[in-house]
C-alpha cells in the first residue's frame, strides 16, 4: 500500500487525472467490474444451489457429489485456462474468462454455505412451512437469508479473486486491470500508470468489501439459544431428482473433468519425451514446505483478527477487516513488486529468502483465513463466553478454552484454504521465492514459458493432486463440525 501511495503521489494530481480520464481506463474499469460481477453472480447461484441440493434434498448421489463439488478448488485458474485454450480456441475473451473463473472459484461460495446450511436450525424452516410457505419460498426467505453471511463472504472472495486474477485472463487474452497493470509494469519504464491503476483497483476493492458488509448487516446475528441444532430432514425431489443430479454432474464435468482430462492428455503426450523426475520431486517438496509454513504464518494473524471482527464490531475493527481485504485485492504481482521494493530498501537481509515470501502470502491470503475464523466465531453464542467469564476465566482464557475450540473447525478450514491457495499462487512466488528454489507452480510457468505444454503437464498434474489434499481436509474439517452435532 505504502509503495502504491508513494508511486501515486509522486505523479501529482494532474497526471493522475489524466490517466484516470483516459477512455481506455474507463473501459478497463467496466470490463473488470463486469467480469467480476458476472463471475460472482454465477458463483453465488451455483454455490448456493449446489449446497442446498447436497445438504437439504434427497438428490440421487448427493453424498458423492458433495465430495466432488469442492474439488475444482484444487485446479489453479491458469491451469484450467490452459486446458480450455488448448482444447477450445473459441473460448477466449470474456466468455472463456467467465467459464474458467466461475468453474475455479464457485467452491469459495459452496464450502462455507454447506457448513452454514448444516448449522441452520431446521426448526425455523419448519415454522415457515407451517405458516403456509412452500419449501421453495421457505428456502429463499428463511434458509438463504440465514446462510447469506457465509455466502456473501464467499462471494467477496470470488469477486476479489476475479479482480486480482492474472494467469487465467492473460492466457485467455481478456484485458482487465491486472493484465494492463502487468503490461504497463513490464513494457515501459514509466510505472506511474500502473501504480495509479493499482490504486484504483484497491479503491474498487474497498468499495466492494464495504458493500459486502452492508449486505449482511441486517442478517448477521450471532446465534442465541440452545446452540445445538437438529439435522434437517432431506427434502424429496421426486422426478426432479435426476434432473438436479444431472445439472450438478454437468457443472462438475466443466469444472473438474474437462481440465483434468486435458492435463492427462498432455501428460501422456509428454511422457515419450521423458520427465525430469528430480526437479519434479524437489518442486513438490518446496511447494509443501512453503504452503505449510505460509498457512501457519497467515493463520497466526487471522485468528486474532477474525475473533476481533466477529466479537467486537466497531469502526476500528471494520477498518482492520477492510484493510485485510485490500491486501487480497492487490494482484499478486503488485504485492510482490511492492515487497521487492520493501525488501531491497528496508529488509535487505530477508530479500529473496523465505520470510519475505511468507509475508507476501500473509498479505495476500489473510482475508481467506479471517473470513473462515470470523464465520466460525459468529456461529457460537456470545452468551457462552459470558458464562465462561462469570466462572472466573480472563478474556484470554476464554479465548483459549472456549472461543477457539468452538471455532476450531472454521480455523482448520481456513488453514486448509490458505494452504491450498498458496500452493496455487504464482506471481508472488515467482518474484520472491528464495534464490534457486522452484515450486510446482513456478516450474510449470517456466515450462509453459518455453512453450512446452506437454513438459508442463506433469507439474500441473502433481500440483492438482497435491492441492486435492487440503481440499479434502477442508471438507473434512467442515464434516467434523457437523458430525459432532450428530453424536
Amino acid at each position, binding site marked *: 500500500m505504502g509503495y502504491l501511495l508513494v508511486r501515486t503521489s509522486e505523479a501529482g494530481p494532474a497526471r493522475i487525472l489524466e490517466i484516470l480520464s483516459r477512455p481506455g481506463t474507463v473501459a478497463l474499469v467496466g470490463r473488470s467490474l463486469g467480469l467480476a460481477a458476472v463471475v460472482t453472480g454465477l458463483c453465488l447461484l451455483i454455490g448456493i444451489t449446489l449446497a442446498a441440493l447436497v445438504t437439504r434434498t434427497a438428490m440421487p448421489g448427493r453424498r458423492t457429489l458433495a465430495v466432488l463439488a469442492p474439488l475444482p478448488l484444487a485446479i489453479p485458474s491458469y491451469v484450467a485456462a490452459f486446458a480450455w485454450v488448448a482444447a477450445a480456441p473459441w473460448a477466449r475473451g470474456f466468455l472463456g474468462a467467465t467459464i474458467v473463473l466461475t468453474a475455479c472459484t464457485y467452491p469459495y461460495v459452496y464450502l462455507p454455505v454447506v457448513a452454514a446450511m448444516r448449522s441452520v436450525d431446521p426448526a425455523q424452516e419448519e415454522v415457515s412451512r407451517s405458516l403456509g410457505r412452500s419449501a421453495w419460498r421457505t428456502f429463499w426467505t428463511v434458509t438463504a437469508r440465514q446462510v447469506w453471511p457465509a455466502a456473501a463472504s464467499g462471494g467477496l472472495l470470488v469477486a476479489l479473486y476475479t479482480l486480482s486474477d492474472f494467469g487465467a485472463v492473460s492466457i485467455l487474452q481478456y484485458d482487465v486491470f491486472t493484465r494492463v497493470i502487468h503490461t504497463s509494469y513490464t513494457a515501459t519504464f514509466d510505472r506511474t500508470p500502473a501504480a495509479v491503476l493499482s490504486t484504483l483497483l484497491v479503491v474498487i476493492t474497498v468499495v466492494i468489501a464495504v458493500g459486502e458488509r452492508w449486505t449482511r448487516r441486517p442478517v448477521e446475528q450471532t446465534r442465541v*439459544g*440452545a*446452540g*445445538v441444532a437438529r439435522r434437517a430432514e432431506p427434502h424429496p425431489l421426486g422426478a426432479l431428482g435426476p434432473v438436479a443430479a444431472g445439472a450438478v454432474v454437468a457443472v462438475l464435468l466443466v469444472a473438474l473433468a474437462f481440465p483434468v482430462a486435458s492435463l492427462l492428455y498432455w501428460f501422456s503426450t509428454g511422457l515419450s519425451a521423458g520427465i525430469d523426475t528430480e526437479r519434479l520431486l524437489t518442486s513438490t517438496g518446496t511447494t509443501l514446505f512453503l504452503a505449510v509454513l505460509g498457512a501457519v504464518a497467515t493463520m497466526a494473524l487471522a485468528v486474532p483478527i477474525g475473533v476481533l471482527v466477529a466479537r467486537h464490531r466497531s469502526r476500528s475493527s471494520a477498518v482492520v477487516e477492510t484493510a485485510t481485504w485490500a491486501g487480497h485485492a492487490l494482484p499478486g504481482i503488485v504485492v510482490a513488486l511492492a515487497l521487492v521494493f520493501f525488501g531491497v530498501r528496508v529488509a535487505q537481509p530477508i530479500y529473496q529468502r523465505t520470510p519475505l515470501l511468507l509475508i507476501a502470502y500473509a498479505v495476500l491470503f489473510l482475508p481467506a483465513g479471517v473470513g473462515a475464523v470470523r464465520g466460525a466465531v459468529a456461529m*457460537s*453464542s456470545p*452468551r*457462552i463466553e*459470558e*458464562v*465462561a*467469564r*462469570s*466462572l*472466573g*476465566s*480472563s*478474556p484470554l*482464557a476464554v479465548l483459549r*478454552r*472456549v472461543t477457539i*475450540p*468452538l471455532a*476450531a473447525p472454521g480455523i482448520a478450514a481456513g488453514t486448509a484454504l490458505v494452504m491450498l491457495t498458496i500452493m496455487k499462487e504464482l506471481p508472488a512466488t515467482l518474484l520472491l521465492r528464495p534464490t534457486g528454489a522452484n515450486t510446482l507452480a513456478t516450474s510449470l510457468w517456466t515450462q509453459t514459458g518455453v512453450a512446452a505444454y506437454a513438459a508442463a503437464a506433469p507439474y500441473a498434474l502433481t500440483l492438482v493432486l497435491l492441492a486435492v489434499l487440503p481440499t479434502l481436509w477442508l471438507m473434512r474439517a467442515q464434516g467434523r463440525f457437523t458430525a*459432532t*452435532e450428530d*453424536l
Partner: protein
Amino acid sequence: MSEVKLSGVSKAFGSTTALADVDLTVSSGELTAVLGPSGCGKTTLLRIVAGFVRADRGRVEIDGRAVVDENVHVAPERRGVAIVPQEGALFPHLDVAGNISYGLPRGGSTRTRVDEMLELVGLGGLGKRRPDQLSGGQQQRVALARALAPSPRVVVLDEPFSALDAGLRAQVRDEVSQVLRGIDATAIIVTHDQEEALSMADSVAVMEQGRLVMHGSPSEVYYRPVDLEVARFVGDLVELPGTKTGLEVDTILGRLPIHGSSLPADGPVVAVVRPEQIRVDGRVERGAKGAHVDDVSFFGHDALARLTVYSGDAPLRVLARTVAPLQRGDDVAIRVIGPALVYPA
C-alpha cells in the same frame, strides 16, 4: 454467600432509559426475584451485576466491596458472580463433566466436586453425556451445576425457565429453588412470570420502565402492592370504583374495610381485591350482590369465573376464584371477604 447492594444504578442505551436510579439490596443467602414485564430493564440490571454491561452511574457492592463505581469496573471473572443464562448456554464442545468443571481450578479434587454437583442437581452418572444428548430441563440443571461448582459468591439467573414447557418448568423451578436454598446461595433471578417470582423467591423486586417500584416479601408484593400498576402486574385483580371514608370504602359490592398504610385522602378511589376474596354463593343473602356468570375457566383445584355485576349505572366485570360448581349463564350472589386496598382514582 454474600450480600449484593446496588445504589443509584442508571443505564441508558442511546435515548432509551434501561435503568433509572435503582437501589436494591439482596441479603446474604437470600433468593431475590426481579420481576417485570419485557423491556423493563431487569436483564440489564442482572448484566450490570455480572459485569457484562457497564452502568452509566451508580454503585454495586458485593460483600461491601465495590465492583461497580465511578472509575471502578471489576472484570466479570473477578466478581464471583456466576450466571445461568436463558436456555443454559452449555459449552457445546465439552461434555457435562467438562462443563461443570469449567470454573474449577486445575487439578485438586475436580472429579469429586463434579460428582457432588451432579448429585446435587439430580443428574448423577450423566457426566459423560454431551449437551445435545440432554433434555431442556437437564441442560438447565447442568447450567446451574456449572454455575454453582466454583462456589460463587452470587448466582444470577436470567429467565432460566422460559425455554421449558409448563409442566417441566414447575418441576425444574422447584428443584432449582431447593438446590439454591440447600446451599444458602445468594441468588438473583430475573423473570417476567409472577407465579415464578412469588413461589420461588424470598423477596421480590418489581420493576417498571427502568425503575424499581417495589421490593418486599412475596406476600407483601401480592397483598400490599405500592400502586395500582404493581397490583395489576403481580396477579389477577378486581377493581371497584368506590368512595373512601376514614378506614372504609363504599363500593358496588358493599362497604369494605381498608387495609394498608399510606392511604389516599377521603373521596373517590379505586378499591381493589384479589379474585380469591370474592365469595360466590348460590343464593342472594343480606349484604351480597347478584351477578351473572359470563365464563368459567376450570383448573381442577379451583376455577376462575368472569362475572358481570348488574347494579348502579354501568355493568361491572369481576373475577372470582372459587371452588363452587359454577356454569356459564348461572346467576349467583357474590360478596367480598376481607379488606380491600385503595389507590387514588
